[in-house]
């Protein structure tokens, strides 16, 4: 075979590659939405709690909208990387991010390189809330924050398990105000945290809600949200205890800036179906994740409110972004 024909074949293969990749762009009219498969980013690795909820949401959205919804994990920087990727996508509703809203309302104050603001994205709604709280062993000699502070004053050098900068900030604010002597033990990931707590290594941790799966071994002493938590309605929030530190974090459908309102409304309506979907309920119930549906307008308002509040708390605590 001659060199010329070989070149010709390679050129033909290249042309094929071009042709296949150059599928006609999808109709951009919002009334036709969705015209094809949708892509849903999740900013964590496959297998985590948020990923689990995200995949359940994708299934409901797919049933509601009648098109496949593909989940693509883009882990990195607590969701920051996925949010950056999202900003590069076309604002047509075909690509969106399912993530904790902390990526926009908390991360910018913790990381130097991030400057997201609520206005940089559109929101189609929120579906679940994280039950962030202070948790300890069932047999610990304190049941609420006041009791814990009293115990801690008598036990200087106690250990607190910390998973995140926010978690460290909480303990530092409380310790400074009450004059506690605390050793803050760094922990990596939810499994590490449960090990430390169940193994009696630390006296207290800040948990994202995973400890509610162990009602026999663990208990909650303070809810770090602005609302009392469905899994422990008798436990007071930290604000009720006199610290204005309640920070809510919710899983949110985030879209690129400029996505048409019709598209957002369609997604918002489809997301509402999660509230009543039986499979979805099984999954979130087993993980003790409460459903709090917010439509697109409520989501936007919540985003702005929590952004302002978190900014005040974190900057008030004197945290320097790193």
């Amino acid at each position: 075979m001659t060199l010329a024909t070989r070149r010709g074949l390679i050129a033909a293969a290249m042309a094929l590659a071009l042709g296949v990749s150059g599928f006609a762009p999808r109709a951009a009219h919002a009334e036709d939405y969705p015209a094809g498969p949708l892509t849903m980013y999740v900013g964590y690795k496959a297998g985590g709690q948020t990923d689990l909820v995200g995949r359940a949401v994708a299934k409901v959205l797919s049933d509601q909208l009648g098109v496949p919804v593909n989940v693509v994990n883009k882990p990195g920087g607590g969701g920051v990387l996925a949010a950056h990727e999202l900003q590069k996508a076309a604002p047509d509703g075909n690509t969106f991010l399912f993530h904790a809203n902390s990526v926009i309302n908390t991360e910018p104050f913790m990381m130097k390189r991030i400057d997201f603001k609520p206005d940089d994205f559109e929101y189609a709604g929120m579906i679940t809330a994280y039950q962030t709280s202070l948790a300890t062993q069932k047999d610990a000699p304190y049941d609420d924050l006041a009791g814990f502070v009293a115990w801690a004053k008598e036990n200087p050098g106690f250990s607190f398990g910390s998973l995140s900068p926010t978690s460290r900030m909480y303990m530092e604010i409380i310790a400074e105000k009450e004059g506690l002597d605390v050793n803050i033990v760094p922990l990596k990931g939810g499994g590490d945290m449960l090990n430390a707590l169940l193994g009696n290594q630390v006296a207290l941790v800040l948990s994202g809600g995973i400890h509610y799966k162990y009602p026999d071994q663990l208990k909650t002493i303070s809810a770090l949200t602005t609302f009392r938590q469905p899994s422990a309605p008798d436990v007071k929030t930290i604000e009720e205890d006199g610290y204005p530190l309640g920070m809510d974090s919710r899983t949110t459908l985030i879209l690129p800036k400029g996505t048409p309102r019709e598209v957002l409304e369609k997604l918002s309506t489809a997301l509402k179906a999660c509230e009543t979907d039986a499979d979805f309920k099984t999954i979130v119930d087993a993980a003790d994740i409460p459903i709090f549906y917010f439509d697109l307008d409520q989501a936007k308002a919540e985003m702005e409110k929590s952004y302002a509040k978190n900014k005040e708390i974190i900057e008030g605590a004197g945290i320097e972004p790193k």
Partner: protein
Amino acid sequence: MRQADIWSGAGLALVALLVLFVVIPTQIESAPDGYVSPRLVPQMMMVLVACLGALQAYNAWRRTPDGDGSLPVTREELLALAKISGVFALALALYLWLSPLAAGIALIAGALIVLGERRIWMIVAMPAGLLLAVWYLFYHVLGTALV
């Protein structure tokens, strides 16, 4: 191997010093008081490498010359490295500016060609077969998107 040991030991010791005095100070901020410094572990490792690298070079230099001054990398091996790097560079360029599919074809067909495969049917069939299999598995069987 004696020559190579001297040079690689000395080179690594230099790299370690460079990392120790230039990269670590600029890339890792120092921590506030009361923490184990985040720089500590990287610094320990680079001090270790600097010492061991120097030791390796010294030990090799002390050994009697074995008369083997050649590099441990043969010409064919360097050539293979260059060829395959070229194929990867082409595939990445196609991925970034054209399409993932084109990149996949270029990678497989390109590697076949530089490794000396000259049968046209193989150069066509192998990329087609592999890409089809991957596409079928992910897009059809699993219903997820790969790119």
